[in-house]
């Protein structure tokens, strides 16, 4: 049902919190992936989006990176990196998929458990996030896209990635609001963007392009 609520842009600041648990081999990683809080699973599959934007070819999934660098499991690393995070709308599903991939790898007949070097254990972390209102509010769709142009990476990250998966709102905040405005087609087009296949700058450009296309539909 259409509503006339404005869109309030928020942003976040975060501290990294240590879970105090670490894995020295794949079995320990597997057991902890099954056990740690969901926010830790979210952290290790998303944190690198924010830590730097210097390389376009970075793997964001830290489980995949560790499998490659610490325990020399390149095939497992590729399989973990290939998990389509955007297919999931809950951490529970993502956790189950990580476990499925690890279990499948460990059940291979030639699998050998390798120890990570002492100084390259997998340390489980999570973030403590503080959500701040930016004071920027959009009352109309054109106003929304105008503000979107200027929002920070952290704001985009919060409304698109955290809202959808960490807060389990099922879709990103932009699509939810546009849907409420009756802009169903635009909302779905934005929802269909896979943020995990690009960086945050690329994501913003794509959303803005969809907004521009919507305002000036091709004849």
């Amino acid at each position: 049902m259409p509503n006339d609520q404005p869109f309030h842009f928020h942003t976040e600041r975060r501290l990294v919190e240590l879970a105090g648990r670490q894995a020295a081999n794949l079995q320990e990683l597997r057991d902890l992936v099954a056990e740690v809080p969901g926010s830790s699973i979210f952290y290790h599959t998303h944190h690198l989006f924010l830590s730097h934007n210097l390389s376009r070819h970075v793997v964001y999934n830290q489980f995949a990176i560790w499998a490659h660098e610490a325990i020399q499991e390149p095939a497992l690393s590729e399989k973990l990196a290939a998990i389509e995070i955007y297919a999931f709308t809950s951490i529970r599903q993502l956790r189950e998929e990580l476990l499925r991939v690890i279990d499948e790898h460990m059940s291979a007949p030639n699998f050998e458990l390798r120890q990570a070097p002492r100084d390259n254990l997998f340390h489980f972390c999570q973030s403590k996030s503080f959500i701040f209102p930016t004071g920027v509010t959009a009352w109309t769709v054109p106003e929304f896209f105008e503000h979107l142009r200027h929002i920070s990476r952290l704001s985009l990250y919060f409304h698109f990635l955290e809202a959808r998966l960490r807060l389990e709102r099922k879709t990103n905040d932009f699509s939810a609001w546009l849907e409420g405005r009756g802009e169903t087609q635009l909302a779905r087009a934005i929802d269909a963007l896979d943020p995990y296949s690009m960086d945050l700058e690329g994501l913003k450009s794509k959303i803005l392009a969809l907004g521009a296309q919507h305002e000036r539909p091709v004849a």
Partner: protein
Amino acid sequence: MTVHLDNYREIAGAEVLDELHIVADRVRHLSLQNINSTPVGGGVAEILTRMIPLLKDLGINASWDVIKGDEAFFNVTKAFHNALHGAKETITDEMLDCFRENTEMNLRDMDLHGDVMFIHDPQPAGLIARRREIGKKWAWRCHIDVSTPDPRVWNFLRPMVEQYDASLFSMPDFAQRLPIPQFMVWPSIDPLADKNRELEPEFIRTVLEKYEIDPKRPLLTQISRFDRLKDPLGVIAAYRLAKKKHDCQLVIAGGGAPDDPEGAEVLREVHEAAEGDPDIKVLLLPPFSDLEINALVRGSTIVFQKSLKEGFGLTVSEALWKRKPVIGGAVGGIRVQVINGVTGFLVHSPEGAASRAAQILADPEFGRQMGENGHQHVKQNFLLTRHVKDYLLVMLALEHPGADIVDLV
């Protein structure tokens, strides 16, 4: 000279300062008292000296006090420090009593007035005994690696640490499993300190000439104490291999502590390994050589930090900030500062270091791009301004314990 927040506007970016104000707005009603064990010398004092004026500029009532102790106490805390790092130390009951007595004295004499207390490192950790009486928020900021401590010392400290509301560690690898929240706060470099600030090209040239370094030829550098764990001999081996492909010079520079017999031995080995090659300069720099170190790094083409074991290794950020690609050992905090192939290279052997150095020397534009990436990486993650922001967020976290998402509407 006191440096103010506005001095960082151009360097860190206006948006970073705006962000600090946004976070500070949420904790401005809280006073912050820092307590450590020394007013000068050492990284903690260095950071607090710089940080307190910035916090004040943000409207935070921030203060810094130092505990008192007799000579015996500081001998004990030095032994504690070594034992927490995993070194073999004999810790006697008398030493524990000495720690307790000095803690009692400080508990009696100190004015603990902050709404939020940041207690730095083990020496003042016992001040937590007054927590119940004065009811503040307490955080223990541990700057050292306590991951493999001597159990006797850790068992002595642990009951104190567990009474805090939170602890802060520089790296997950340095932490212990504790029943209180543990936050990770990376250390930082101060871009305005003598060690890091911009220098006139003329000054850089003068320093290079003073040490008979040719400013026209590529220069590889490692700045580190003379310690086997910094692998200076591996650096010389890497340089020799790289030199077979590209002309270059090498500087190995570091300070020396007069009471460090191992350092003197390593220095002798380094001199021996460098003998006969006029392109290798081994420099034992006196204390307060920050400007010269800055100039040597700025005059370099590539900086090595080829450690075999490392704490955080902020010398890496110091070099990256000066837009130098860094070839570092894949250990400790070097791994978060050197993004392999982006801000430099992580290596595991002199051969690896040599081939990466040769690769950069063969393609100066590639090296320049890596240096630029390194500068941006440090700007985003390892400057003092980020450190200030994290401390403000810890204050906020202490106000909002529990939830992993805090909505500040």
